[in-house]
């Protein structure tokens, strides 16, 4: 039984059997993963090369006693506190155009949850030719302006969350409320796609 007791049987079946990839376990990825597990998903493929640091605790789904742990291990531990019966495939790796495709080849949908614009662009360039739905985020730094965080379907397979302008390189900090909104919207889009609902 998944973490979501509100699901109808057919919804539960779809969500529990779905495999979703999450590229990055930072502010977007860790929070998106928690939403997906609470929504009823059980199979996630998560990739991140980083360790939990103090600067992550302002927005990422980690705790002070996890400082120094590999993010994929710490996230696995936290997700299993929500729902112990999960099928998690963890990749402690920096994603490249080559390994990104093999890492997520068994996933139905992939969430882009990386940090830098270059890494995001690299990942989208690598994964879009696979023809799988990708949910990505661009433009979520700073405070306020919640309603500017939009959602667009681009082409057939890309859903882009964010305002596409609020860049941490312009001195805006990545902080929990806006990053959390984008992470929740990414998870919401994934669940809607799986359940064939309006995104």
């Amino acid at each position: 039984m998944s973490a979501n007791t509100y699901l109808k049987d057919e919804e539960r079946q779809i969500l529990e059997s779905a495999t979703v990839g999450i590229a990055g376990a930072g502010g977007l990825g860790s929070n998106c993963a928690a939403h997906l597990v609470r929504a009823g998903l059980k199979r996630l493929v998560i990739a991140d090369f980083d360790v939990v640091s103090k600067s992550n605790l302002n927005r990422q789904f980690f705790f002070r006693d996890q400082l120094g742990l590999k993010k994929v291990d710490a996230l696995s531990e936290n997700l299993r506190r929500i729902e112990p019966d999960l099928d998690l495939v963890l990749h402690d790796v920096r994603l490249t155009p080559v390994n990104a495709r093999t890492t997520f080849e068994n996933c139905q949908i992939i969430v882009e949850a990386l940090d830098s614009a270059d890494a995001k662009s690299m990942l989208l360039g690598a994964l879009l030719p696979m023809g799988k739905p990708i949910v990505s985020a661009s433009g979520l730094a700073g405070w306020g302006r919640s309603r500017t965080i939009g959602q667009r379907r681009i082409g057939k397979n890309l859903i882009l969350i964010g305002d596409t302008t609020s860049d941490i390189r312009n001195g805006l900090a990545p902080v929990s409320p806006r990053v959390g909104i984008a992470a929740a919207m990414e998870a919401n889009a994934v669940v809607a796609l799986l359940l064939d609902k309006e995104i």
Partner: protein
Amino acid sequence: MKIKYQGNDEETAATTVAAFLSGKGVNAKTAIVEYDGEIYGAEADLSALPINEGAELNVFNIVSGG
């Protein structure tokens, strides 16, 4: 040649998507380009993509933060 760029009508003499976007100051290496419903990522060669009359072109910036 008339195209629709970011939802607005534009007149352009550019013959390729790369040339058009360069004229707009767009860095296509950190953007997603949607051209007539197809997506082109950072690795796409937009200089090989001709601009056609009536085409629809949209660009979405990829910025840092996560």
